[in-house]
């Protein structure tokens, strides 16, 4: 009988495994574990490569994967998940694990390392304001955040955003800013007093992206390859930790297994799995089962294991608003072909002590295909090309994550055919927030208009959570104790964002990781006979 079985190797599963390893326990990870395609690494910068080489295979692919968003009648995917080399991240198991989406577009991963193979690596600590609906406090997470900082390598700065992101003394120096981001930062500095009075703060993001060498990993080379090539050395992914743990025999990793359900037999938890290749069923026995399959799949497993097709569970996500904006003075400038193609700056709008602050990521758009923007421009084709050439270098995008809302949350259930159904609800977006944000951008000499603001489809916040929430004292099915133990299921723990009862306006994965380590610590203590 295994001491610990973990389902999933994403940020949550891998962080739990890391903590077990710290505690001298060797867990077994069961995972579907799809791996990236074996393609030669692009060793040049993205744009220099493209000047010399036909990039059809890199950008479009033989199966036309890169054209996923061409026909808007089909399911649209976030641009970062479309390129051929990134498709493995969301390769679905349509036949084995069907999902029905109703007014919701779910993004799931069955890859080794999970969704974070394609993430933006924004790693933000929650503070007590963020955690106010949680049964835990910042102090419960602090030591885990620190342990993770040592594992991931985080660049950033202890700047105006410290009250929101916390002080981190292990930060590497921040990445070089793009010209647009530098301009925005300069404008912020000039208008700082006025903006701070309005509750607006801008600063460097905390990114699990290296600006300096870190162990064997190299610093960011500003290659703009973030959208195109998985496993970049400078950008942390859970696979890096997983591979290290496997090499050091600190984890047993079993891939090619789809976990179907579990049941209890005496003190043991029996996990039923299906081999992806031959569909054979096998059983694993353990003392402790850790669900880290992502908030959707962990909930699916909980419902399936109870053969419950009546209960609907809440599924939270951050609704995402995209504000493209431009600097008139940068129209016609050269495209910054050597840049870091993801988050450059963070924006906080904290208008009122009683309200949760709104956080935005200000993104450079040098990495995605230029053609992705063609459909957003409104001129004739030849003139749209001029906009792509002369206007895009002046444009950045701010992505605002809105706090989750219980009233507008989606719901999931298992139907009688064992399919997962997800029902989305349209959320009313506060127009006032849009108008205020546009005004703030104007103070920063960055311009946009309400009709350009885009609401990402339901589900494209990709911060799924809340399906199996943790409570101070859990008292009903499908809730967890504050240590992540599922009610009525001794020995079954939840380590992913399922346990988050609420999502503040902040990327959640760093806190998911810290909490997974906390859950692992609890199990380790119990295994060692101490509470």
């Amino acid at each position, binding site marked *: 009988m295994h001491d610990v079985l973990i389902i999933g190797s994403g940020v949550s599963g891998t962080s739990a495994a890391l903590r077990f390893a710290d505690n001298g326990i060797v867990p077994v990870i069961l995972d579907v574990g799809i791996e990236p395609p074996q393609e030669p690494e692009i060793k040049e910068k993205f744009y220099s490569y493209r000047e010399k080489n036909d*990039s059809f295979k890199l950008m479009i692919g033989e199966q036309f994967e890169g054209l996923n968003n061409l026909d808007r009648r089909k399911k649209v995917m976030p641009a970062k998940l479309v390129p051929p080399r990134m498709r493995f991240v969301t390769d679905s198991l349509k036949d084995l694990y069907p999902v029905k989406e109703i007014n919701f577009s779910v993004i799931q991963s069955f890859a080794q390392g999970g969704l974070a193979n394609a993430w933006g690596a924004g790693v933000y600590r929650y503070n007590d304001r963020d955690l106010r609906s949680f049964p835990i406090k910042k102090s419960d997470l602090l030591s885990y955040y620190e342990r993770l900082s040592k594992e991931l390598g985080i660049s950033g700065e202890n700047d105006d955003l410290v009250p929101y992101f916390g002080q981190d003394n292990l930060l590497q120096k921040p990445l070089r800013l793009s010209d647009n981001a530098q301009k925005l930062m300069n404008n912020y500095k000039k208008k700082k007093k006025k903006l701070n009075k309005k509750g607006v703060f801008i600063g460097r993001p905390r990114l699990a992206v290296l600006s300096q060498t870190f162990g064997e990993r190299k610093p960011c080379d500003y290659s703009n390859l973030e959208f195109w090539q998985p496993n970049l050395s400078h950008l942390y992914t859970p696979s890096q930790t997983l591979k290290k743990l496997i090499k050091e025999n600190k984890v047993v990793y079993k891939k090619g297994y789809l976990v179907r359900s579990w049941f209890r037999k005496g003190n043991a938890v029996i996990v039923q799995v299906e081999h992806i290749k031959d569909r054979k069923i096998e059983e694993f026995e353990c003392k402790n089962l850790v669900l880290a399959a992502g908030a959707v799949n962990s909930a699916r497993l909980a419902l399936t294991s109870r053969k419950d097709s009546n209960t609907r569970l809440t599924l939270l996500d951050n609704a995402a608003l995209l504000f493209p904006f431009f600097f008139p003075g940068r129209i016609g400038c*050269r495209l910054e072909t050597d840049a870091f193609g993801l988050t450059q700056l963070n924006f906080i709008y904290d208008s009122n002590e009683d309200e949760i602050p709104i956080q935005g990521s200000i993104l450079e758009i040098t990495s995605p295909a230029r*053609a992705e923007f063609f459909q957003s421009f409104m*001129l004739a084709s030849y003139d749209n090309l*001029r906009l792509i050439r002369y206007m895009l270098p002046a444009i950045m995008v701010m992505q605002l994550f809105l706090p989750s809302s219980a009233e507008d949350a989606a719901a999931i259930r298992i139907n009688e055919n064992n399919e997962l159904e997800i029902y989305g609800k349209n959320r009313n977006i506060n127009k006032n927030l849009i108008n205020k944000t546009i005004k703030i951008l104007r103070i920063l000499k960055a311009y946009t208009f309400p009709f350009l603001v885009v609401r990402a489809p339901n589900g494209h916040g990709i911060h799924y959570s809340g399906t199996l929430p943790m409570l101070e004292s859990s008292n009903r099915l499908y809730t967890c104790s504050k240590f992540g133990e599922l009610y009525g299921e001794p020995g079954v723990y939840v380590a992913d964002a399922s346990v988050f009862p609420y999502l503040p306006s902040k990327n959640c994965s760093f806190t998911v990781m810290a909490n997974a380590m906390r859950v692992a610590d609890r199990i380790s203590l119990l295994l060692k006979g101490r509470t």
Partner: protein
Amino acid sequence: MDEAEKIFRSIFKSQISLPLRENFDRASKVFTAAYSKEDIDAYNRALEKISDLEALEFASRYRNRLPLLVLKFKLMVYLAETTPENLGFYVNRKDRRLIGYISIAYGGLRSMVKFIKGMFLLRILKNA
């Protein structure tokens, strides 16, 4: 002129390369398969009868007409970006602020004319 050549010329005002034409033809087959016979017929008629496809596509985009023509234009824009010889259409390699401003302003005016022309072409096509 064949389909790929016509569409490329309408967008880029130059001649299509062989590898791009091949990629377009292959992709085109796959994407066309998802459209109805009516859409395909309307598209073929447009290719045959109208010389200013750029104007026609522009008006169609706003009028929700000729979906296959709109799709093929987008397809060509995606595919052409992967070829080194067309990268200059997408990437501004030097600071050219004045040219940038002038071409965007001129592009706005040009697009207005194209739109009006496109609306006429849609009517001609409907009556043809």
